[in-house]
């Protein structure tokens, strides 16, 4: 029988509390949960046959819900769905091999939760505004003075497209800078992705102390007031999925 790992956590402070919580929950396919430990770190696992683990919505939600329930009470490193190991002994060896990395990561995320911040725009409106700016830039002398040919016309159009894209990215960079300035008071660890889709111009994840949720909401409301043409969506608190930085060996 294989073991599926849900999360890794430190049980140094309150092992009884963890055992009590595991007794109130069930794993995938209603299996009992238990821990496999090495020194003060433990993996929360349940038994499962490899062939019974189906990657469907029910199991994925069950898996995420379990991690979330644990994260409400403990600092946990969430493990990727479908992480199966053949035996408890192998899990123990894995914890031993990666002990320092796990400890360091647990320290980084201690008492912290993740928030997602997405910024959306009306793409047509934003493009129209930026196009005006891009076209207002003066042309370089060597193109302007050149006698017109199909090749210079072609290059001129390409240059306009290029300037438009650069302006768009610069505009998004300005917004990111403003967001980071506003968020500075919360002292977050943050990661940004730009231009995720035509509408989703910023997709950020923030790692904040658990008690900073309300402050974070206030900051996002301030940003929304400053940028009425954009839409800000804040989600969370999540287990720190995007701040796990371990390649388990």
């Amino acid at each position: 029988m294989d073991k599926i790992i849900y999360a890794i956590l430190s049980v140094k402070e309150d092992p009884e509390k963890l055992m009590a919580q595991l007794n109130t929950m069930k794993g995938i396919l209603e299996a009992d949960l238990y821990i496999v430990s090495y020194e003060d770190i433990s993996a929360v696992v349940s038994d499962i046959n490899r062939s019974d683990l189906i990657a469907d919505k029910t199991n994925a939600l069950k898996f995420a819900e379990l991690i979330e329930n644990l994260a409400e009470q403990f600092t946990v490193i969430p493990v990727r769905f479908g992480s199966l190991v053949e035996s408890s002994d192998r899990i123990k060896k894995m914890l031993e091999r990666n002990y320092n990395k796990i400890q360091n990561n647990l320290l980084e995320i201690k008492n912290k939760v993740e928030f997602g911040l997405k910024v959306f725009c009306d793409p047509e409106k934003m493009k129209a505004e930026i196009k005006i700016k891009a076209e207002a830039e003066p042309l370089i002398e060597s193109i302007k003075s050149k006698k017109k040919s199909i090749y210079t016309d072609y290059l001129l159009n390409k240059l306009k497209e290029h300037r438009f894209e650069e302006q768009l990215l610069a505009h998004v960079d300005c917004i990111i800078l403003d967001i980071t300035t506003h968020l500075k008071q919360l002292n977050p660890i943050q990661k940004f992705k730009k231009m995720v889709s035509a509408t989703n111009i910023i997709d950020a994840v923030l790692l904040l102390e658990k008690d900073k949720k309300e402050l974070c909401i206030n900051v996002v409301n301030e940003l929304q007031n400053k940028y009425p043409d954009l839409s800000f969506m804040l989600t969370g608190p999540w287990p720190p999925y995007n701040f796990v930085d371990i390649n388990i060996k």
Partner: protein
Amino acid sequence: MTNNKILCNTGTVNLSIQDITDKIEKLEKAEEAKLKLTPDNAESGLAKLVLTLVELIRKLVEKQAMRRVDGGSLTEEEIERLGETLMKLEMKMEELKKHFNLTDRDLNINLGPLGDLM
């Protein structure tokens, strides 16, 4: 999931529908972009792969060229030659796509943090 995870969803852009539409479109694109090589379509599958790489390199060359043009360091003659080269490259690429019955969408790949190729 426990509670409602959306803490703040404000502004004038209609998020819910647009976000979902974008995500579905992205998943569909990712599915379509997969290289499906079988004995029956080896030629077109390989053409798709090769042309995707060629298009990626062409776009990078074009981007770099535009930076140089915008920097103002090129002479009139160099600009004329560059325009001709880039235009012919684009036309040749269109020819090849037509020959192998491929569209821009077929050659699109996600470049991670850089976004989509097309």
